[in-house]
């Protein structure tokens, strides 16, 4: 919801949208209050193994040579993925999140010392979404384990000079909490 109250106007627009931000960590970091609002975070690096680099260069070259043909070639896969996502979305309401999973999520956040409750909320939503995509009826600890790094890595209170990656800390906490 977007509220405008200025210059004699008082309006409310619905504003539900997905915010996708990208940034270069070498240029500095986001403020924590903004970072906390992002649900998931992934760090993307240029692939370092030769085989995947060659694949990328070949595909990009194929695209440049014939954009329409390239799109047609991959259209089937895209449609399949789109359908899977739509079907998963329809299952979202009927998927239960057991108390044990919620409790594990809370224990995980406590162990990592994240501020606020957005960590647990995101863990729950992301795990549920993953379960729907997998076609599982209920959310399991495995789903939680899968989404935990991307849901929590940006919420850790970290020492700016600490070099240990947040992913390693999450892996440790996962091993402690979930066994």
């Amino acid at each position: 919801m977007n509220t405008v109250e200025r210059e004699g106007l008082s309006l409310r627009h619905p504003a539900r949208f997905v915010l996708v931000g990208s940034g270069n960590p070498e240029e500095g970091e986001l403020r924590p209050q903004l970072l906390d609002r992002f649900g998931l975070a992934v760090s993307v690096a240029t692939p370092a193994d030769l085989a995947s680099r060659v694949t990328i260069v070949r595909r990009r070259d194929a695209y440049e040579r014939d954009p329409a043909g390239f799109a047609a070639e991959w259209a089937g896969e895209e449609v399949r993925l789109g359908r899977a996502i739509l079907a998963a979305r329809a299952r979202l309401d009927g998927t239960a999140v057991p108390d044990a999973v919620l409790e594990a999520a809370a224990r995980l956040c406590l162990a990592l010392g994240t501020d606020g409750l957005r960590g647990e909320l995101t863990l729950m939503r992301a795990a549920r979404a993953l379960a729907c995509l997998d076609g599982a009826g209920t959310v399991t600890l495995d789903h939680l384990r899968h989404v935990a790094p991307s849901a929590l890595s940006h919420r850790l209170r970290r020492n700016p000079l600490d070099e240990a990656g947040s992913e390693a800390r999450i892996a440790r906490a996962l091993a402690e909490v979930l066994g």
Partner: protein
Amino acid sequence: MTAPAPDGTWTRACLAAALAALDPAGSGVVLRARPGPVREAWLDRLRALLPAGTPVSRLPAGIADDALLGGLDLPATLRAGRPVAQPGLLARSDGGVVVVPMAERLGPGTAARIAQALDTGTVEVARDGIATRHPARFGLVLLDEGEGEDEAVPAALADRAAMHLDLDAVPPGAIAGTPPPDLAPARAAWPEVPQEAAATLCGLAARLGIVSLRAPLLALRVARLHAALCGHDGVGEHDIAAAAALVLAPRARVWPQDQDESPAAPPPDGGEADPASAATAEDRILAAVAASLPPGLLARLLAGPGPRAPNPGAGRAGAAARARRGRPVGARPGDPRRGRLALIETLRAAAPWQRLRGGGAGRLRVTAEDLRIRRLVHRRETTTIFAVDASGSAALERLAEAKGAVELLLAECYVRRDRVALVAFRGRGADLLLAPTRSLVRAKRALAALPGGGGTPLAAGIEAAAQLAAGERRAGRSPVVLLLTDGRANVSRSGAPGRVQAGADALAAARALAAGGTRALVIDTAARPQDGARRLAEVMAAHYLPMPQADAAHLARAVRASAPPG
């Protein structure tokens, strides 16, 4: 410097011009050359090779967003009484070439917008009540006129430009040469690219230490253009070698190793390509590439683990006055899209003309020249330059503690969102370990890897810090120098040992630093406070702080005291 045969460089540059003219939007060039006949000759050649009627425009480094991307044509809009849109420079250059003189002065925002246009091939305007999308496929020619290491073309654009040329070594006499080739047959050709070409180029990029994936991609494109230019049916080893020399060699970060030293590329399994011959083809090309590596590269590679990342050429000394945020300090005539409209001042400017313009009662005629915008002054960013004495005497005493102190200060800088830079001096001279950055992790890493030992070239250290400070001031930031030393200089400016001369040189360097107006703080790392360091601080007009008292709280307070007021 033993220059390569200058004719070779010029021939390669001519080849690059032909390739760029074949497919401007698919290639792109970074041309490192000072203004002069050689550069003009190259640009003329490029223009002559392009098909007649191709737009070639110049993009000034300080271009405003509305001129770059397009926007509202304000005078026409005011005249017509309805919004009149005008396309920007990028959209007008669709299908042509954009030449950027002084590309090292491009701001990061402008560079990002140009990069986006390059990536998408379109320019999107969604502002001032206009929403349009223009096609903008253009070739970029970046003219790098940077002096020294601290001025470089924005990395985002340099990475997207295929060919990097350096014409500084070409004498003007070498440019009289072959007439430009006819490109019409090459334009129509579309040579086949064999499957293993991509693998060869990726392998070469890996062996030259190139991380970016754009490099092999662009090299593949250039190889195809080269094959078309030469009239080959398919891309062969010769074309790949030419592309690698133009695209990959200038980006090399590692001196190519011999095959048995570096991990060999996995040979393609099966197929008609015999693994041994594929590997030797890569080696042959690598040897050709090594011959065309820039002459200064080896020296740079031997001097350190790799050339440091170029500084994004952000801002200039004038940036503070053109700030878009900050405290208002009056108004000036200007376009409200480049700042905030100052309504009262605009009305005040329009008022005297109302009778002349025929404004009646209750009507006010405002024209473009009445518009006033707020002048804002932005708080300058601070760069903290750490100059750390890593000499034997300091190492003996307490280098570890000095490192600890610097870490405390780094944490302080993190809180204040300062930039930090790190200079260390030991042995015979000073090294810039870390160019100004906001990444504290990198600062910490550079510091942890700092070895100790050797003499104390204090003068060289102070001079390096002063030079860095001057660069930061040019870039519109306020530098603060933190010198951690025991003040016992024993290596003079010329690198010769000797306490007396070294001490005098250090004092002279300190005086020069103070004359430059740089704020400084001297932290005496000696176990017992030394006269030398105190005297140095006096000459530098710096705060002096002996380390025995330099606990966290003291240091923090001292840094805050020497930082400029916000």
